[in-house]
């Protein structure tokens, strides 16, 4: 918030920043390798994407109903793509079924932005299903933003379960 500073201090701060960034890189790589180890031990999160199955329901045997996202992201993870390919296969077999993709965000963001983010997440899932041959006529998209969490906790694990796109049978 302090926006006034003299030039010398500015230079020092720049230097500090470079050092800090270098540090950050080192710390980040340590953290990443730490993650690589820890993800197996917890089995619940990878990075900050939920990998557990507590809240997952099944559309059919082996066909999970939801995919999870990283904070502020709408990029599909490898696991999410695998889930969606299975959903696509199931939808191709059951050609009368139509679906709603419900996009959600965690509680750590402003309401309006989260509505847009939920919509973006559900559309990421929709686009992927379409590349696997599911017609857009069979898919509608609905964002709930942060309005319908599955886990009411205020912790990173709860938030990771809430960042999701859920495929719901519409008929």
């Amino acid at each position, binding site marked *: *918030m302090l926006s006034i500073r003299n030039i010398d201090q500015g230079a020092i701060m720049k230097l500090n920043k470079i050092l800090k960034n270098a540090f950050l890189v080192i710390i980040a790589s340590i953290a990443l390798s730490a993650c690589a180890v820890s993800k197996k031990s917890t089995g619940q999160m990878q990075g900050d994407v939920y990998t557990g199955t507590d809240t997952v329901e099944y559309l059919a045997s082996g066909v999970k109903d939801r995919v999870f996202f990283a904070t502020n992201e709408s990029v599909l993870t490898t696991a999410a793509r695998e889930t969606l390919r299975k959903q696509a296969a199931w939808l191709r077999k059951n050609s009368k079924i139509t679906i709603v993709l419900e996009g959600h965000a965690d509680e750590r963001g402003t309401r309006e932005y989260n*509505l847009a983010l939920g919509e973006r997440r559900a559309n990421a899932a929709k686009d992927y299903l379409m590349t696997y041959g599911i017609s857009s006529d069979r898919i509608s998209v609905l*964002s709930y933003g942060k309005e319908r969490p599955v886990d*009411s*906790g*205020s912790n990173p694990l709860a938030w990771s379960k809430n960042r999701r796109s859920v495929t719901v049978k519409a008929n």
Partner: protein
Amino acid sequence: MKKFLLIIFLMLTQIKAFALIEVDITRGNLNPLPIAVSPLSIDNNSKNSFKKILKKNNIGSEISIVVENNLKASGLFNPLNKDAFLQKPDIANLKPRFEDWNLIKAQALITGKVSFIDEGVDSTGKLRVEFRLWDVLAGKEMMALAFTTVPNNWRRVGHIITDKVYERLTGEKGYFDTRIIYVAEEGPKTRRIKKLAIMDQDGANNKFLTLGNELVLTPRFNPTSQMVTYLSYFRNLPRVYLLDIETGVQEVVGDFPGMTFAPRFSPDGKKIIMSFAKDGNSDIYTMDLENRIVEKITDHPSIDTSPSFSPNGKFICFNSDRSGYQQIYVMKSDGSNVKRISFGKGLYGTPVWSPRGDLIAFTKLHKGKFYIGVMRTDGSGERLLTENFYQEAPSWSPNGRVLIFYRETETNDKGEGFSAKLWSIDLTGYNERMINTPTDASDPSWSSLLSN
């Protein structure tokens, strides 16, 4: 609401601009002005008439309590304990003995008189209130006004008196004769029931406007009338709606093939500005309420949302993640000249242009904490007013001096202990206080002044 009710202003005396007491509201006020609010005097006849109509024992003291609470909540005044008052209300209103009021350290004094005006059998009669503001040290009358209205409006009379006193002493318009529309919340966090609700600025006269059958979010007042725009999930189709709070009539705004959200009125009340989301992309649109013409204002593959007009209608501030993360941008009202204005550390959301035009209030997320802050419209002079686990969605009082927002609590390991409440804070960062609501509450929006 009743289409307004003869509030007859009767200037009893013309005030000349003497250098009397003034309250400086530009800085955090750590020494609120000691003020004595004498109960308004009332004759026995009037007392009994109002008792019948309003079920209040002494409407004179009830009105003075409204004034007192308003003054106290502003943080600028310190209403003195009535037990210490030496002069009777009726005599004080005629000719205050300034020594008596000086003795209890009052610098200003409010006195007044309430009377019942009988209008025959066809009418319930009228409420007539006169009040005076006195400078105790100078021994002078600063203001004297009288109004006549229907008895049911007695709380509003208290608010109008406060507005007049506030304006006379601070030099700026008040914000007391106003209402707040908000979302009332109940039930567990995973299955929250939300209703539109409206109340007076001081929390009185709370009323629910929807039943809770469908999810409703982000109601906002039209600055020029008693219309509200909000988001409803009616039939599971999230769309922007328009609601007339006097008639209860609702309608969908526009005919969009997808979710519309984040609505606000233009300052003249003639347009609604909002986001429309399609294929993973949210852009900002306006719709003219008269001719229904829809205009696309932003065209960018990023999320563009939370638009808010400048008070002159020439600019729009909004929230976009086109830089990668949520930041605040300003553009001309036709969508040209887009400029990012937030450059501090963290994410920025919910920009709202101040009714005075000079500031933009926002929500900021930095290192896991949420802040309500203000910055100038070019992004300079960022000032954070309050930090908490979760808070967002500031809305300005009509005079641009106070912000109302909502705050949520952190839950424990079992996911218990969640609550959402409305809070207000002075622009200076002082006088943070919770506003009592019958249920949990979020998404507040402040109306304009109902009178003047």
